[in-house]
């Protein structure tokens, strides 16, 4: 069936688990930023965990009444959900039948995930339906008037097996390859208080220190780093002494030193941290 998009909020994209394996060609991995939330949404309506769902940034999504009813689940940032004119639960499958489906702005967090029972049937690119905002691969971000192809199966709701309560905490750091470019890099990262910058996006969480910037080690003052590969969660320190935590759409190579890597299981927090909020690190 085809579902019409009426509003998208600041940014709504299609995301699955991305297209790993092509980094050597300059293709970012892409994929949902809050992986566990996207997988949970898919699972709640009976889709495989790698299925494509909608990633809604700060709410504002509105889908027109579906041609056929289906199961829906919304996870991630707790956006108020209404469907068929009624408020609907978070992280629980519900039946969507006759009216529009709407996500309000979440009280906290950034990204909500909407799984539709039949699955999103947009054409995959290099094995993934994910929108990559850096390389421009995959479907374009949703726009009002778009029509989403959705599988005809209504989905199979999974009884709630206790959707785990997630507690944000400090992001755990592992040493990166260029830790020596900053004096006591990990210690300083952990000691500093960081604030999330508005320029943060699917490429990276951009952070500014509230106190002192991270100082470049004397041995590397003015040095340039030849481009080298980067991993998901890489913490890069640009010359201004801030920090960037690279997320799904990160460039495959970079020329600033990566001093640490955020533990993959903590990256969902980076996906849900809002501009202006504080973020802290600790050693893994």
């Amino acid at each position: 069936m085809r579902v019409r998009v009426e509003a998208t909020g600041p940014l709504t994209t299609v995301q699955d688990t991305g297209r790993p394996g092509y980094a050597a060609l300059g293709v970012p991995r892409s994929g949902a930023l809050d992986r566990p939330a996207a997988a949970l949404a898919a699972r709640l309506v009976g889709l495989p965990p790698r299925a494509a769902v909608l990633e809604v940034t700060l709410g504002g999504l509105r889908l027109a009444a579906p041609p056929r009813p289906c199961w829906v689940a919304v996870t991630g940032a707790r956006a108020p959900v209404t469907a068929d004119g009624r408020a609907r639960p978070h992280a629980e499958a519900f039946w969507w039948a006759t009216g529009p489906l709407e996500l309000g702005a979440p009280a906290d967090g950034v990204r909500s995930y909407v799984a539709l029972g039949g699955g999103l049937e947009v054409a995959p690119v290099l094995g993934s339906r994910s929108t990559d905002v850096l390389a421009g691969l995959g479907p374009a971000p949703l726009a009002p008037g778009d029509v989403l192809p959705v599988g005809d199966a209504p989905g199979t709701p999974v009884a709630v097996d206790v959707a785990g309560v997630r507690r944000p905490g400090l992001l755990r750091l592992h040493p990166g390859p260029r830790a020596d470019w900053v004096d006591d890099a990990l210690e300083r990262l952990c000691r500093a208080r960081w604030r999330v910058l508005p320029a943060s996006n699917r490429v990276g969480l951009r952070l500014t220190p509230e106190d002192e910037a991270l100082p470049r080690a004397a041995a590397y003052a003015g040095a340039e780093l030849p481009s080298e590969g980067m991993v998901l969660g890489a913490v890069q320190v640009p010359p201004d002494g801030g920090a960037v935590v690279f997320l799904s759409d990160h460039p495959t190579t970079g020329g600033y030193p990566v001093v640490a890597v955020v533990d993959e299981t903590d990256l969902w927090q980076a996906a849900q941290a809002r501009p202006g909020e504080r973020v802290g690190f600790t050693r893994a």
Partner: protein
Amino acid sequence: MRVRPYGPRAVLVEVDGPLQAAALAGWAREHLAAEEVVPGATTVLLDGVGSPAAVREALAGWSPRADAAPGPLVEVPVVFDGPDLAYVAERWGLSVEAAVARLTEVELTSAFCGFAPGFAYLAGLREEWSVPRLASPRPRVDPGSVGLAGAFCGIYPTASPGGWRLVGRSEVVLWDLDRLEPALLAPGTRVRLREAGR
């Protein structure tokens, strides 16, 4: 060769330059289990490896000379009329014709990709022929533009902003999602520029 830690699932291997990086990357794809093998200018990232310690051990089996199989050769016809060709020639102390001859005589090798899908950093120019990037990048560079930056040559697969010194343009399709291998110049590919129409 030096192996640096890169979080719990990856290592970064430092080697002696882009050609060695491309060679090690080719070897690693055959001999190591990694989700991503990403060559860089002087490094190879091995990402998604079960045990970094085991990878360190396996890397001992590689030596820069052990790998000899050359990559496929791609000829790229180029119209040498780029806005920075005269600058490059002057920097090299050559006439424009001689600069073009230099660019077409060198066998280049795709060392690594980055910046955009299918954008290959082509190594093979001598270090002393390095040219600096533009102080401020052009807001738009056309697809197919052939440029130089440092000792690398590159061809823009898509329109984008860019700071490379443009020496010419080519009509080859560098990135095509309908091809089995979408990148024409994947790492390890040998490249020879040829004057179009000759």
